[in-house]
């Protein structure tokens, strides 16, 4: 779009990755170099907004300078030797697959910082909070930007620490257990993943993802590929999360603070699926083909499982927690992403990447909304909220109710909103899976997955019915409707959801060439 010279692009990408880290350190200094606030707390929160804002601007500049005619080419690449003895290099770069995720991460973190600027989370002093938020941002951005397996692992793990503290320090009820479970579960997966990454790196002789993708698994024997895919896949599947490795997610979401939930759902889960696309598909295609039917089966079970769990939670008298419900819905949605990846077709992988972004936007919005709801009513328990007939949010807080309904509708995959394209393409990919995969099996998966969309619609609309509708709103006191800062934090998500739904080419045009190249043998 805009012609930005390559060296500036390099700097921008390095800046996007490094700036949050520097910002995190700066936030810990006695006098943060942000704008002066009325109190030290406000100053440090403002510092967080400033840093994430600058990073977002840089990410947008990066997107603007990206050569949209060649999205399959790695752009803004930096390649410096780091640990020569281990052949580890600092290799950064973005292509059409990672660019949307980088922008999404920068956006969501900025919105979270903005939200918590006005509404600091209840807990210890915000100084550490801001520092952790920025550290989280640097970890996720680095995950999407690095092109070296060891660095990828480092970035992948960096994220765990701040997320652990965000949940354990600023979380709600049961936060300690949830934080422990989160960190142990994902670490366990990561250990296995590290083994797999080392196996690939040692057998192929390089940790460089570009070189490995170009090689397309030709220098790895099938048995090595199978073992590597199994090991790396388990690590990524825990993060994604794939059924039946999902049970850390509901607890973590329920206990996490609003911004933590938003980032967890919006960004962290994407790292797992991104790893599938970025590492497993191009590096070990033969091994992946072995496990693709199993992955698809797990994904489909996840879709149905998540929806049914949500239905059970949404039922009257089940004492279902809204945040927990949305967490289970994430399991279902990520099931579509994994199904798309498992098809190994360009269509399916495009759909998976699209669904990734869409889920980040929509679920982020939903968690924000539920956070706002909890702040107003003091609870996220459906039964307490809905009482006999429903909470009648349409009447007590019309805009909030409307937004919640919008979020639910977007989440159920309504065509014309972001959620649809990903699910549709994933299913279409499963309808015609890649050569070498069993077509009847995948068609069955597709049919079950499509039924999953029906179940998804069912529980989301039940939630809307119990939260937004309901009798006699005039008896209940009016709640404060959506406020300025909430509009500021939520509007971008709403706008992007609609935009991605109406103009899917904006994303698919970026991912499609890159994905085609990956799957066609990785020649560059």
């Amino acid at each position, binding site marked *: 779009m805009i012609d930005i010279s390559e060296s500036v692009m390099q700097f921008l990408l390095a800046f996007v990755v490094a700036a949050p880290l520097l910002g995190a350190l700066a936030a810990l200094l006695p006098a943060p170099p942000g704008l002066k606030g009325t109190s030290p707390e406000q100053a440090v929160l403002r510092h967080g907004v400033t840093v994430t804002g600058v990073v977002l601007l840089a990410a947008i500049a990066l997107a603007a300078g990206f050569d949209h005619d060649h999205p399959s080419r790695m752009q803004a690449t930096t390649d410096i030797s780091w640990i020569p003895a281990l052949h580890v290099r600092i290799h950064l770069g973005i292509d059409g697959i990672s660019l949307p995720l980088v922008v999404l991460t920068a956006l969501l973190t900025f919105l979270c910082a903005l939200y918590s600027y006005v509404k600091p989370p209840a807990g210890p002093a915000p100084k550490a909070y801001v520092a952790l938020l920025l550290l989280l941002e640097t970890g996720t951005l680095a995950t999407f930007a690095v092109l070296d397996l060891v660095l990828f692992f480092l970035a992948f793990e960096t994220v765990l620490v701040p997320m652990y503290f965000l949940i354990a320090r600023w979380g709600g009820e049961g936060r300690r257990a949830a934080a422990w479970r989160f960190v142990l579960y994902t670490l366990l997966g990561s250990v296995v993943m590290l083994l797999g990454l080392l196996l690939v790196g040692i057998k192929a002789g390089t940790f460089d993802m570009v070189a490995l993708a170009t090689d397309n698994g030709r220098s790895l024997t099938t048995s090595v590929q199978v073992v590597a895919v199994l090991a790396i896949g388990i690590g990524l599947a825990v993060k994604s999360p794939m059924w039946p490795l999902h049970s850390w997610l509901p607890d973590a979401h329920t206990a996490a603070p609003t911004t933590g939930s938003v980032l967890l759902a919006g960004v962290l889960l994407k790292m797992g699926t991104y790893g599938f696309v970025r590492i497993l598909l191009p590096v070990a295609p033969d091994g992946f083909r072995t496990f693709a039917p199993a992955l698809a089966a797990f994904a489909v079970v996840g879709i149905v499982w998540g929806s049914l769990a949500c*239905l059970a939670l949404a039922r009257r008298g089940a004492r279902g927690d809204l945040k927990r419900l949305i967490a289970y819905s994430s399991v279902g949605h990520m099931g579509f992403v994994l199904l798309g990846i498992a098809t190994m077709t360009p269509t399916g992988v495009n759909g998976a990447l699209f669904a990734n972004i869409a889920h980040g936007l929509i679920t982020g919005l939903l968690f924000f909304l539920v956070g706002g709801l909890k702040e107003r009513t003091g609870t996220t328990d459906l039964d307490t909220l809905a009482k006999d007939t429903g909470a009648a949010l349409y009447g007590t807080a019309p805009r909030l109710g409307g937004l919640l309904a919008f979020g639910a509708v977007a989440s159920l995959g309504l065509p014309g909103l972001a959620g649809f394209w990903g699910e*549709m393409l994933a299913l279409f990919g499963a309808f015609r899976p890649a050569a070498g995969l069993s077509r009847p099996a995948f068609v069955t998966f597709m049919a079950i997955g499509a039924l999953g969309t029906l179940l998804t619609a069912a529980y989301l609309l039940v939630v809307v019915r119990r939260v937004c509708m309901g009798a006699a709103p005039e008896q209940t006191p009016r709640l404060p409707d959506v406020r300025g800062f909430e509009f500021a934090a939520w509007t971008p998500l709403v706008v992007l959801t609609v935009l991605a739904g109406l103009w*899917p080419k904006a994303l698919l045009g970026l991912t499609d060439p890159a994905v085609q190249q990956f799957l066609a043998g990785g020649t560059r």
Partner: protein
Amino acid sequence: MTTTTNAVLVPLLPFLGAVAGLLLGRTAPGFVRPLAVLPTLASLVLAVLVAAGQGGGPALDAATQLTPTGSVPVDLALHIDGTAALVAVLVGVVATCVQIYSTGYLRDDPRYPSYAALVSLFTSAMLLVVYTGDLIVLLVGWEVMGICSYFLVGHYWETPQARAASLKAFLVTKLGDVPFLIGLFVLAGDAGSFRITTVLGTVAGGGLHHPTLAALLLLAGVAGKSAQFPLHSWLPDAMAGPTPVSALIHAATMVAAGVYVVARLLPVYQASAAAMTVLAVMAAVTMASAALAALAQDDIKRVLAYSTISQLGYMTGALAAGDRGAAVFHLLSHGAFKALLFLAAGVVIHAAGTNSLAAMSRTGNLRDRVPDAYWTMTVALLALAAIPPFSGFFSKETVLAAAEHAAMGHTVHVPAAAGWTVLVAGLVTALLTGAYALRLWLLAFHGRGADAPGHGRQPVAMNAVLWVLAVPSLAFGGLTYRLLPDWLGGDSLAPALTTSVLGTGLALAGGVLTYGAWRHTTARAARTPLGAVAAHPQADAGLVEAEAVAGHEPAYGDIASAPDPADPGRLLLGPLHRHAAAGFHLDALYRAAFVRPVTAGASLVRFLDREVVETYVRGAGALPRLLGAAVRRAQTGNVQTYVSALLAGTVVLAVAAVLVATGA
């Protein structure tokens, strides 16, 4: 402006109106009404221009790529033939009428802004479905209509009926949409494109590998959207929404979308005799059972809803007989008179303060209170019953004629059995239609008893719209049956003698029977007082309706029927009445077949998730804990023990190192 530009603007304008309405609704209430009416009106004018530009000639095609998908791209394509142009005009007319009507009907409703925006969005989506040449974009419009319908049915969300009905409407149609999506995949998989023209070209070239499968999968979606058996049960319940919504969505447009899609993709069905037979059976069952059910309903809008289902059955019947022109012809005329019927019913409900026919039959003088509604509704009911020369007569005759043609085996691709099925069912339904139309008219306007409380005059916006729609109901069929074949690209639509006589005769016979029954039962009406009238007669029409809907079940014990011995339908149907009133217990069947298993599955998953998956997780945690407990025991605090262990280890390591170093 070229026709293409106009065509693009037709769906776009209401969409922009909807967006503006949603954004400005609360901040600038003055703009809401213009924003609701003007874009729709403008798009009507443009649709007429497009129709004029198209002129029944060859189809207008234009396309640009919407998005690549990695295999089959999705295009933003226009495909406007005569059918599309005419249906778009119908949609524009009905939508404009409904928007104008709503300004009066929901005059004081605080939720009018979002309501109007949703109606605009709905109009836009319908126009998109009509004009698009790409199946996925069609699906977008298709589902957006579904969600708009969901929100609009749930407009009175304070009432439990509306809450339940909105959910049901969406889920049942979605149940059909899932196979529909898969059907689209099947088509695109074989054709290599989502473009309708390409798909039809593939079908014509015999490139479709599984036409039956594709057709049946698509049919499920059509059955959901067009309320065909067995997915029709949401439509009567959807009457819990505001009347204008019922008129727009559940009479003229959304439910017609399914028929429209089948009409577009008719060659796919024609490629499979089995699909045509299924279509015919579905149409026959739908039209007959819905007409029976209409005869048993007490809620005036539910009567109309079942009549809609029944009329849609005619349309699918025409398609099953292989006559696309007849189906679209009936779609157009039905759209006009059914919209009129609903809007008039809205006026009647407001005036009577109830939606119950039983209560109306005990209210005197309703006819003089709302003369506009009385006269226009009479016209529309005559059209519905297919009495010449009203428009319904011509369109229904073409359907019956097409069925007869097919039954005689003169239509290629259509099995004669399908033709016979449609023909017989169509004739039976004609009888029933005459019966329930007259029952409605008699019970609503010829009641005896105390006068209803005065409500003042209806708003001009509402009455004027009624007369506007009365014109096509009266004259559309007679004026256009000679012109339309050019547009619809089909055979002659002139009425044939045999079926005309048969159909009209049966309708009249139905009317006579009903009249006789009514004469017989009406005397009982005075003996059993019934009726619950809205508490706020001076209120907004919408509010009155909401109360009427909410009050029906508490007052009569059932949402569909009333224990009224004076009802001629009860006499006519005999023991069948109970089942017909309950929609032949389809809901109970659904509950047993879908809702229960899903609920049980949900409970099972909850159990498994809590007990089984969690047990593995806990077990994984318990193992390290056991190890930890074992190691804890070694921590005695005695330094000598620690050092002993340390040195023992050192010795072992040293010995091992020596052994390794010496190569032993």
